[in-house]
């Protein structure tokens, strides 16, 4: 089928194409304008902007901890809409089905679940497979697991460590590797309650820094396209900017991605000893080209924090609203679920401002990524409002006026003029995520790219415009019209597939037998376990 998206304003920074024109799709791919071709279907995009489908690199959309959060808070996601006829279960609040639909309506076509516990890989992929329309991917968590920590303690060769990382990525069907408060979850099991970059996990004598550096090197050497994804130590605490600064410095020339930097943008000034250190961190990011970051923007309202940083979540239990939480000591990281409401009080306002400062003070839209760390800073449904804040100084000024002056005095936000352009939005939410994840087939509108396309009708109300796409195509299927889902299709989970080293597999078999009393079969699964046609799409490692 030949489709022509006619007369839209095309914004495709990767291919340097900006301006009015047509975009052609044959079946599931974007093609160059065919000579004398007659379209089977023409979409009138006059008055619209046309971009590639958006990509979210860090959103907790599925897996053990997310599901536990659903279980903990049934009162928070009652459904209200009628039973959908064409998209079953999509009205179910916070279900996998609703997740795919809500993302698609905003023009997002690929979303990365950034915290897959290797032991719960099958569970995670089953949830992702029930997220309709969009493509998904996962990052496998390492860095608190006994196997890795023991290898580092015992000075295992970098080859062996790479073999283990490759096996983990391959067997869990991950697209990359994440380390979450490296070493802290292991230390917490030994009753350590705070943990910093140069602290040492007691039984292993291995520092957090050493774990991060080891994994960073392994990921780079294996050619995993996405750099090691780091959730730093000391998340959320006043003064955590020092930890983030030290971690940025620890990149030392190799690629490193820091997740939800907003949660580390905290200084210790003012009478509450809580202030914005965003300007300092932005300057460091600007000066460190090998580092990329995403924000984890806070937006006001009720949410729930879902994190594999079990030590941090344990210490945050007292702030739970409503007063209930789950803390799980897992095989590696485990995790914690703590519901929380961001109010327009001093602290909430400070966090909100810090995220925006980071967005606006980091110069290069190729190195700053658009996230709320869903649902930790805010649910992803806050994205349209967040786009508006980035693109409109006026919108920011209005909100600032409603926030405590004491907080705004400790932030530079009010003085920042910058407004993101649509081109910068296209870079930040399309081009750069594709590049960061090694997905050459998306994030742009060049011939040969998969036809993941979002068409937005221009509107003075940016939140409305970017919140309800006029048209969305996924792999060439028209899935959204006028902000409504038209039908389901089933995307893939994108994964790497490095071949595991046989000696490492034998070693792991022995390890599981000895330590868990179980063979490795208990943790492996065939693709058929997912029970969907082609549940996975393979992405190549760098060679």
């Amino acid at each position, binding site marked *: 089928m030949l489709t022509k998206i006619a007369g839209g304003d095309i914004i495709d920074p990767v291919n340097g194409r900006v301006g009015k024109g047509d975009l052609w799709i044959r079946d599931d791919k974007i093609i160059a304008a065919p000579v004398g071709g007659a379209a089977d279907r023409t979409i009138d995009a006059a008055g619209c902007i046309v971009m590639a489908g958006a990509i979210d690199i860090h959103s907790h959309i599925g897996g*053990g901890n997310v*599901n536990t959060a*659903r*279980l*903990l808070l*049934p009162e928070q996601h*009652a*459904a*209200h809409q*009628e*039973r959908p*006829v*064409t*998209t*079953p*279960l999509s*009205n*179910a*609040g*916070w*279900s*996998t*089905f*609703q997740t795919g639909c809500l993302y698609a309506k905003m023009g997002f076509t690929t979303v990365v679940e950034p915290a897959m516990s290797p*032991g*719960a890989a*099958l*569970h995670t992929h*089953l*949830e992702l497979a*029930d997220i*309709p329309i969009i493509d998904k991917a996962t990052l496998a968590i390492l860095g608190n697991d*006994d196997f890795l920590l023991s290898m580092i303690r015992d000075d295992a060769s970098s080859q062996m460590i790479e073999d283990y990382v490759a096996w983990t990525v391959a067997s869990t069907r991950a697209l990359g590797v994440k380390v979450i408060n490296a070493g802290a979850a292991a230390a917490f*099991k*030994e*009753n350590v309650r705070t943990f910093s970059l140069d602290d040492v996990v007691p*039984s292993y004598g291995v520092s957090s820094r050493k774990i991060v550096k080891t994994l960073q090197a392994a990921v780079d050497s294996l050619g995993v396209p996405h750099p090691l994804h780091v959730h730093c130590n000391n998340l959320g605490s006043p003064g955590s900017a020092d930890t983030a600064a030290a971690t940025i410095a620890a990149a030392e020339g190799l690629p490193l991605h820091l997740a939800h930097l907003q949660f580390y943008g905290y200084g210790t000034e003012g009478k509450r000893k809580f202030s914005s250190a965003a300007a300092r961190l932005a300057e460091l990011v600007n000066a460190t080209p090998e580092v990329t970051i995403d924000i984890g923007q806070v937006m006001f309202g009720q949410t729930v924090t879902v994190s594999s940083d079990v030590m941090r979540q*344990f210490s945050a239990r007292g702030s*739970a609203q409503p007063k*209930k939480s*789950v*803390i*799980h*000591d*897992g*095989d590696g990281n*485990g995790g914690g*679920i703590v519901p929380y409401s961001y109010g327009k009080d001093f602290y909430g306002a400070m966090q909100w401002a810090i995220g925006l400062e980071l967005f606006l003070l980091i110069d290069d839209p190729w190195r700053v990524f658009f996230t709320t760390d869903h649902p930790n800073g805010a649910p992803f449904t806050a994205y349209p409002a967040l786009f508006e804040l980035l693109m409109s100084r006026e919108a920011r000024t209005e909100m600032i006026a409603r926030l405590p002056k004491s907080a705004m005095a400790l932030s530079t936000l009010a003085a920042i003029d910058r407004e993101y352009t649509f081109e910068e939005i296209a870079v930040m939410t399309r081009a750069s995520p594709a590049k960061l994840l090694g997905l050459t087939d998306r994030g742009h509108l060049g011939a040969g790219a998969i036809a993941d396309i979002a068409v937005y009708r221009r509107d003075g109300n940016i939140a409305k415009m970017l919140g309800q796409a006029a048209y969305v195509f996924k792999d060439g299927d028209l899935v959204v019209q006028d902000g409504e889902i038209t*039908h*389901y299709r089933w995307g893939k989970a994108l994964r790497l597939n490095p071949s595991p080293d046989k000696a490492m597999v034998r070693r792991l078999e022995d390890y599981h037998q000895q*330590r*868990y*009393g179980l063979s490795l079969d*208990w*943790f*492996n*699964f*065939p693709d058929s*376990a997912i*029970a969907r046609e082609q549940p996975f799409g393979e992405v190549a490692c760098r060679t």
Partner: protein
Amino acid sequence: MAVAWIGNRETLVERAAAHAAALLGSSRCPVFSLDTDIHGTRAAIALAERVGAAYDHADSAAVSRETALFTDKGAMTVAPGEARRRADVVVIVGELPQIHHQFVSELSATVPDLSAKNQREIFLVGSNGASAPPLNNGRTATLLSCGEASLGATLAALRAQWKGRQTSQPVSNFDDFTKALEAAHFPVFLFSGDATEGLALEMLQGLITDLNRKSRASGLHLPASENGWGSALASTWMTGFPLRTGFARGVPEFDPWRYDVARMIADGEADLHLRISSSIVQPQKKKNRMALIALAKTEEPIAGAAVTIAIGEAGVDHEAVVYSSRTGSLRSIDARAASELPSAATVIRLVASHVSAEAALPC
């Protein structure tokens, strides 16, 4: 071999499925009870939405108590692998279901390799007559009891005594317990919703919270039913809610009293019961002329069922995904003795294909 019946009459699977669909289509209040694998659960929930049914586990009292712990209060939990590798004190809380006895015996036969203490002490909380699952090497668990007091009351006393408060009846062997906890690095409490009142689970979590003020401790959730907990997890991601969810009003609603399927049947609210279980279950007592559709591993029609369709057993007749309490997560299992018998999911999808609708079932 016959695989489908309408009443007592043998028929083609296709016809039985069409008849089941017709019954579902005309039912005013259909209810589903599940004892099946993950994909069976997914298919059943998708069908439940389409026909406006409520669904629950087939033997749901314990699953419901375990669910309520999470929905109402939250918990501190530990993975079974970590319990095996780290627990230097194991406390068995009440009677554990038979399916977990093997693991308990394994705990008693091994020592925690990630603990500085190379041994494991084992306690049992319960009334005087309580017995632990058989332990290895002739070991016995030290009993912590308050005579005939209930489990909840015993746990309350244990918690109070730990905090240094007076209790009306002291817990037996409390000094041993204190000594063990004081030396412990990572005590783990094994609990299940089986034979444990909900308040006891909350009281246990209170004790674990108290212990964590000074030192680490956690609870290992050993579900009363692995299928039940697996279904609860799948239901939670699919609808946002655990079991005892209903689609009577078109949207999923979670109500642990209203959608208690056994209650709905006993009170005569349900007029159609779809029972999905590879094992053969005795028909439940009921007030009205409720119709039964039975999906079961059977070679003959189920007594009293309007429709019977034979299904295979997960992990025996076909590969499956199930909850494993041994790993604390979902697990893929091969068919031990692969057969032609279809999975529950396959049969449910076949039934659903006969219910008129505009879109395909999403699972």
